[in-house]
């Protein structure tokens, strides 16, 4: 039939189904295809906490949101334009995130009696039949039936056939958005090449989905989303945890030190361990320890031995590492501590995102224990930020905390990746000569207040270090009161001095002086950026700065803040940066807080801007 083709500048699709329905794969395939085509995009997977929550129920729903466009995209989007619902539970869980007038693509087979009951629909109610979805565009397809029909001759069992259902949906969406399917065809070849019958089946169903769009009358509209104007260069798609792993490897290469990762699995940080375990040929040694304490301690041992030492975890694991973080700080050994934050406290919300560990990072240790803290603002930014964390650790002989969170760890975006030779070298000089006429002084400081790194195996520089308070320069145990006060201040001064070696705070958008500054940190970057662009279009005087170096702050931050009438700090916590900024700069900053395990919607920030500037 005759179809119209509409050009639009951005779309948000949410793929939702049972955790067994393959929605993550469907989402990532569509994402890769969109990326290769040149759209800007941002994604956000949303998995259930349980690996196999009961089938058909709301806790078992797995989602993947993709926002892509011919314009710049900063977030996975607030409400979606299209909701793919593979079953009743997927619809029920996600309908509130669908825009008024949005499209629902529903798999009618997932709305049978049993599925409706499991999704807690009232007896006799069936949203795809009873008109309750009025106000949305409903496209109902019996995906199961079509998939089975397509594979009737395949000789495969019903279970295997049904597993290909997601390909039908993917094919249909490719048709709807005028996409070339070759990247997915190539992917299927690589994934199932060794099982020709499964490969054939998936390919066939993918194409039937596409052809179904072509021939059926269900969806009368096709959409074109042109490539986005992005800075020239070569791009790839990247997820935050992947970027973190790569940043670490890059730092290892650029410092000339092999990397040692001590880690214990925990959501959402585990993928960094998985990722790094693949790259042994880069000299990476990954060590899955018996717990988080052993993980960080093994890394401290490796650091003592002269490696680039890293430990990765999330909130509960970081809590366990606390004592050893204090040790690393006393030893003044380089160590990168990665916290991919999740909802807390305690076990909290493992699969949901939050920024609630900032206080923990900055203050959460016994004694006065300053450790530099830096945070990544987006999936791709994890690369540069963790590279910076390694640089600080190695150049200043200190543990450094790198904060990411579940949102950017699993989210993805296009990345204009650097060339290896564009990355700065990280300078590491092991000490091999005695720095004293008498005995070697392990705590003699240089102009950065950093101490020398003499590793075991270096003749003549044998020395002992430990967690007890130590005498200035010699490192011998000291209980002298004057010395203790001196050393506490020295360790603080050393970390404070890092501010002399980090870039000044810059603005992401807006003037350097004005009515309202939005100050963000970490993964609130995308939503704030989007909101500020919108607000400025509407004529509001608002600027945006996103802080990477949270401790110590860039030296000019205080000055920047004082140039604005109002400062707004959106955070996915109850106001942690807010309280630090108020404390440090004595400004009456305002918080915008969301603690729902979900990132901010651009609209939420925009509303607040309008409220403040009305």
């Amino acid at each position, binding site marked *: 039939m005759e179809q119209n083709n509409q050009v639009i500048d951005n779309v948000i699709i949410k793929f939702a189904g049972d955790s067994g329905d393959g929605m993550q794969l469907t989402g990532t395939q569509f994402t*890769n295809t969109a*990326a*290769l*085509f*040149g759209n800007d995009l941002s994604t956000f997977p949303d998995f259930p906490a349980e690996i196999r929550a009961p089938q058909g129920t709301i806790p078992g729903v797995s989602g993947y949101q993709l926002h892509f466009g011919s314009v710049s995209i900063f977030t996975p989007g607030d409400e979606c334009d299209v909701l793919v619902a593979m079953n009743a539970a997927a619809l029920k869980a996600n309908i509130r995130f669908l825009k008024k007038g949005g499209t629902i693509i529903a798999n009618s087979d997932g709305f049978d009696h049993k599925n409706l009951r499991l999704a807690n629909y009232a007896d006799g109610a069936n949203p795809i039949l009873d008109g309750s979805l009025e106000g949305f565009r409903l496209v109902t397809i019996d995906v199961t039936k079509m998939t089975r029909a397509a594979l009737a001759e395949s000789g495969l069992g019903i279970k295997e056939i049904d597993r290909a259902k997601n390909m039908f949906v993917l094919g249909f969406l490719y048709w709807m958005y005028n996409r070339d399917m070759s*990247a997915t065809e190539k992917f299927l070849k690589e994934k199932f090449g060794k099982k020709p019958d499964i490969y054939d089946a998936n390919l066939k169903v993918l194409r039937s989905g596409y052809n179904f769009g072509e021939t059926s009358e269900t969806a009368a509209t096709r959409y074109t989303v042109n490539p986005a104007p*992005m*800075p020239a*260069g*070569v*791009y*790839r798609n990247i997820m935050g945890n992947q970027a973190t792993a*790569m940043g670490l490897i*890059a730092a290892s*290469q650029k410092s000339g030190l*092999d990397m*040692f990762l001590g880690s214990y699995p925990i959501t959402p940080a585990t993928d960094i361990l998985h990722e790094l375990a693949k*790259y*042994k*040929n*880069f*000299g*990476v*040694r990954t*060590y899955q*320890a*018996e*717990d988080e*304490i*052993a993980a960080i*301690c*093994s*890394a*401290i*041992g*490796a650091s*003592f*031995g*002269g*490696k680039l030492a890293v430990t990765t975890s999330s909130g509960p694991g970081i809590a366990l590492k606390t*004592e*050893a973080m204090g*040790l690393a700080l006393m*030893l003044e050994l380089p160590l990168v501590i990665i916290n991919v934050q999740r909802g807390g406290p305690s076990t909290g919300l493992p699969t949901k995102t939050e920024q609630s560990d900032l206080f923990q990072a900055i203050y959460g240790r016994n004694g006065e224990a300053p450790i530099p803290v830096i945070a990544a603002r987006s999936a791709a930014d994890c690369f540069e930020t963790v590279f910076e964390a390694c640089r600080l650790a190695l150049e200043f002989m200190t543990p450094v905390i790198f904060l990411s969170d579940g949102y950017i760890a699993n989210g993805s975006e296009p990345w204009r*990746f650097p*060339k*290896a030779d564009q990355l700065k070298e990280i300078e590491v000089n092991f000490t091999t000569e005695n720095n004293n006429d008498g005995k070697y002084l392990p705590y003699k400081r240089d102009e950065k207040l950093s101490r020398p790194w003499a590793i*075991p*195996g*270096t*003749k*003549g*520089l*044998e*020395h*002992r*270090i*430990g*967690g007890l308070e130590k005498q200035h320069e010699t490192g*011998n145990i000291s209980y002298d009161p004057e010395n203790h006060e001196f050393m506490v201040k020295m360790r603080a001064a050393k970390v404070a001095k890092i501010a002399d070696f980090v870039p000044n705070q810059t603005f992401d958008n807006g003037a350097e002086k004005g009515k309202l500054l939005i100050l963000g940190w970490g993964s609130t970057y995308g939503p704030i950026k989007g909101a500020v662009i919108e607000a400025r279009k509407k004529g509001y005087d608002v600027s945006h700065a996103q802080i990477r170096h949270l401790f110590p702050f860039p030296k000019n931050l205080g000055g920047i803040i004082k140039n604005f009438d109002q400062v707004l700090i959106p955070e996915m916590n109850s106001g942690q940066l807010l309280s630090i900024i108020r404390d440090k700069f004595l400004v009456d900053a305002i918080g915008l807080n969301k603690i729902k395990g979900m990132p901010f919607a651009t609209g939420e920030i925009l509303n607040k801007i309008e409220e403040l500037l009305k």
Partner: protein
Amino acid sequence: METIQSPESPKLTSKDLVTDQEVRWCPGCGDYSILKQVQTVVPELDIPRENLVFISGIGCSSRFPYYMETYGMHSIHGRATAIASGLKGARPDLSVWIISGDGDSLSIGGNHFIHLLRRNFNVNLLMFNNEIYGLTKGQYSPTSEEGKVTKSTPMGSVDHPFNPIALALGSEGSFIARSMDRDPVHLKDMLRRANAHIGTSFVEIYQNCNVFNDGTFEIFTEKSNKKESTIYVENGKPLVFGQNADKGIKLDGFTPVIVNLTEGHSANDLWIHDEKDLVKAGILSRFFERPAEGSGHLPRPFGVFYENNRSCYEVGLNQQVEEAIAKKGKGNLDALLSGRETWEIK
């Protein structure tokens, strides 16, 4: 741990291992003897001083590294084993010695202790067992006997103690030995054996805390009863003990029985110690009755209970790196960064 030879470096002496730090243990503490034996044995091992690393946790015993003129780390309570694991994994070339107490290894560090033995890093673990928390001034420890009266257990401890040797065996330890501070000759011998073994060498050292637990091991150390209450096991030799070497131990099925060698039993009937025999090592580890429990009990064994050779974690860890490089070539950062799918925007 094996010996790391370095022919060109001049021979170390005990003096070269003494630091400028004043040793701060209580006068009469068993730790002094252990330090002395270590400082005596290490120079014999032909390990360049710069390749020696002593890592300890927290406790009286854990002050040890400050008194050894080698590389060293006095870390945090219970974690020396974990730190040493990372160091050995990263630097297999080093000779790594862990110094720990009974509380440090078996209480707060129990988890790392069992996993170290299981992974079999090629390191030496010297556990100074004084059956008490020394540094915190005398609370019962996980090796203190039931009923032990201490400051934290004024009515006696209701806690059942660990049997460290049995625990080490259960943790898949590949070298398990016991010695004591009061027997320098034996202790030195065990240190040499520990160093020679490739894999985690666990040596439990009975150490007298003369301030908070004085005389706990007296029955094994004092001349008057030592011969009756201890047995020194040696590979290939029968289990003989007693004032006049007049008693032996025989296995009746799986049950050890004491026989009198003067009454018709000959040494040929006795249990011959075999360090490779895991089952027998298990039985031997259970010679663990408290000395107070009357005569006729089995003597406490000293020596190497068990030794076997199996692969060390750090070897596998580093082999995989080499294999990966051999197979895929040294990592290329540009290829890693670009990944498999890229697109260009002009």
